[in-house]
């Protein structure tokens, strides 16, 4: 992940500044030889962090026959993701669903984490005062 990219991502997270996404470089490529139902994607500047998490979310989709990722060379910051689907389901749509599910998952984890932390903090401050 490049520094510039991360800055925009953090700005996205903190909502402190409006971010101009049109200036962002395209970091997703469709690799040659891909068909509608069997496609390989190259994610620029990504690694196991997104690769494995996204692979899991896509494998959770029953329309998917195969999903796997690889990092072809350790000194190139690229992650390849292969998706093969059943019965003419579009690989691009499967990838979109995977990304959507991952974002939804993060929302749920964030909510649950905040609730349980606040509960813990409240319980412990009571203990301290009593």
């Amino acid at each position, binding site marked *: 992940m490049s520094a510039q990219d991360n800055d925009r991502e953090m700005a996205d997270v903190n909502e402190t500044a409006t971010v101009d996404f049109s200036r962002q470089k*395209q970091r*997703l490529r469709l690799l040659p030889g891909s068909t509608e139902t069997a496609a390989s994607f190259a994610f620029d500047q990504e690694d196991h*962090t997104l690769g494995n*998490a996204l692979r899991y979310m896509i494998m959770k989709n029953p329309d998917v026959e195969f999903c796997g990722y690889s990092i072809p060379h350790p000194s190139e910051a690229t992650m390849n993701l292969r998706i093969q689907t059943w019965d003419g389901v579009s690989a691009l749509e499967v990838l979109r669903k995977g*990304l959507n*599910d*991952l974002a939804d*998952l993060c929302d749920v*984890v964030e909510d649950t984490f*905040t609730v349980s932390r606040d509960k813990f903090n409240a319980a412990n401050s009571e203990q301290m005062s009593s």
Partner: protein
Amino acid sequence: MPSWAPLSKEELAKARAPLSEEQLQQRRMVRINAETVTDTSATDIPGHWGPGQDDSWNLERFRKSLQITFHQNKPLDATFSLIGVDASIANAFRRILIAEVPTLSIEEVFMLDNTSIIQDEVLAHRMGLIPLIGGHEGLRWLRRFEKAPPKDDFAAQAKYDPDDVEDNAKTPNDHNTIVLELDVTCRWANEKEDGRDGRKLAKEGSTDPTEKYINSNVYAKQLVFKPQGEQVSMFAGENAIRTANPDILIAKLRPGQRIKLSCHCIKGIGADHAKFSPVATASYRLLPHIDITQPILGADAKKFAKCFPKGVIGLEHDAESGQEKAVVIDPMKDTVSRECLRHDEFKDKVKLGRIRDHFIFSVESTGQFNSDELFLDSIRLLKAKAEKFKRHLTELEEGR
């Protein structure tokens, strides 16, 4: 019957039925045996258990099954259990915590005078590793400074596109650079200023440098924050940038030696340099599981308890045999040493394992942000990653 024989009605019904509650619990276990570890892969993938078991992604089901319980929540050390997620997700959070949450660190050190015995480059490296703290609002307000790569780094030069960098980020300014200064000179202690004569003390045989000299030790607290422009209001009062630990020893000096330097601190990520990592450690382990399959009684129970760390196994009065019986009290304290499997009397009475989706996270912040906030940042960053590639996917489909 050959394996390819058609299934009977009962077998067919069994293959089409969803997993029972017991089976669902069983597949959460990673088995730990005397010499091997088995069942290491997650099997909650659609199709793995036949058509009867629905393992497809379901947000509501996930929301219900996800549990987070805190064990400790201190600014520098948070421990909590994350239950109900896959290892790939938990690992993504851990990796983001270590390498992708941005923090402020010293990046450039301008040596104005260094006559100490510690070399410029070694001193600069030491300075970089000092953890800094300051007002959280200001730290989040601070933008990134994009330094052009060095001219002789051809790989970085080839990738660098000046048009890709916002103009404001190309030069150091009050929005992206914090200035710290250090000016320390060591000298003999004298009667007039310090109330003691260092030279006289030395003649009398004193060997204590702090007694004989002034500023013989240079500490991190001697770094002075020089707010620039808008930073005056953003980092006012207790929000000032300072070192997390005031007593970090930077260098040792002797009379006549001096260190005068000016530092530029910028925001960066752990993937670029470990000094930018916001955590000292961020790690998880799986909750150990001890399954006593047959009662362990009397003297054996005591011996069994000794196979585990204190507090894992307790003794309980067993009404049936009238003896003491070993019971599991707190598996969290277990280290999974497998000692109990070395004894023949316990070998067949206990099953060890770990729970595949119960992650005991431990996040230790270096001080710049609180540990729980850092974990929240890692969740948001993973989400931002997914959102970013959703945009890229739309662009890809539109043929850009």
